[in-house]
């Protein structure tokens, strides 16, 4: 793994502006993909912006009757949410068909989209 610098972002906009300043940076959340790729030097970011402390870890109802899922909600927590299991069962089933329990405990909603 190549050396890199590291910071913990304190707000979503702060994380975004830190990334805009550093084109050689990557966001890190669960790290389930990025760390593997860094160990193999497929990804070689010079700087990591940790986004785990942004408070984006909640699942909340929306005024339209849906659910807003924070980017940092872990796959395990999303799959187990009673509202997801009842109203969006396809999502719960898809999550549980992927990876392993240990990985789902770390992997995030946003990371899984990328």
């Amino acid at each position, binding site marked *: 793994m190549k050396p890199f610098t590291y910071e913990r972002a304190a707000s979503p906009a702060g994380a975004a502006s830190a990334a805009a300043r550093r084109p050689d940076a990557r966001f890190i959340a669960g790290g389930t993909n990025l760390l593997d790729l860094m160990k193999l030097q497929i990804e070689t970011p010079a700087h990591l912006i940790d986004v785990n402390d942004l408070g984006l870890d909640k699942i909340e109802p929306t005024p339209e*009757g849906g659910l807003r899922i924070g980017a940092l909600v872990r796959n395990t927590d999303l799959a187990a949410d009673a509202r997801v299991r009842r109203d969006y069962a396809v999502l719960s089933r898809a999550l549980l068909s992927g990876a392993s329990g240990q990985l789902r405990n770390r992997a995030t909603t946003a990371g899984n989209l990328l």
Partner: protein
Amino acid sequence: MACNKRRPGSGCSALGGYSRQLAVVGGSDACIATHPSDMAVAMRVLDATVEAVKPQGATRTIPIADFHRLPGDTPEIETVLEPGELIASVTLPKPAGGMQHYRKVRDRASYAFALVSVAAIIQPDGSGRVALGGVAPKPWRREDAEAEFSRGAKAVMAKLLAGAKPTEENKFKVPLAERALAAVLAEPRG
């Protein structure tokens, strides 16, 4: 190993090489990688939206249908996110009801990427929605294919996988996807 996604312009070892896992539709002459997520396929069939934050704090909403890019000749650019944009949340619309299925077919029972996966929502009247994983560079859905549900899995898949260009190694995915959807449609509707 040549990879246009990892090193743009370096070529593609998978085209003409080992391609069992790779895309049959939506790929290009530069890249036939599949999007590996199961979650994203479910998000696609649920019509989720992605909210992104820009460096100045402004936010924008991106329908998941538009979130992932097809590779074309720039496979290294995988999404429409701009440099510095951060995903803040993913929003699901109000529940769609119906029977909700995720059928994943893979080489072993656990801890493997999909060869083909089917995310489907089937309503009691037989109408439905379907998105596929394991076959394309993004969760693969064509709403125009869903008008064919009354005519069965073969008709749906003929539209959904129209224009497919599989390799010799992964052409099995086309009938496999059709049969996986047929298995879903054989399940009880209520």
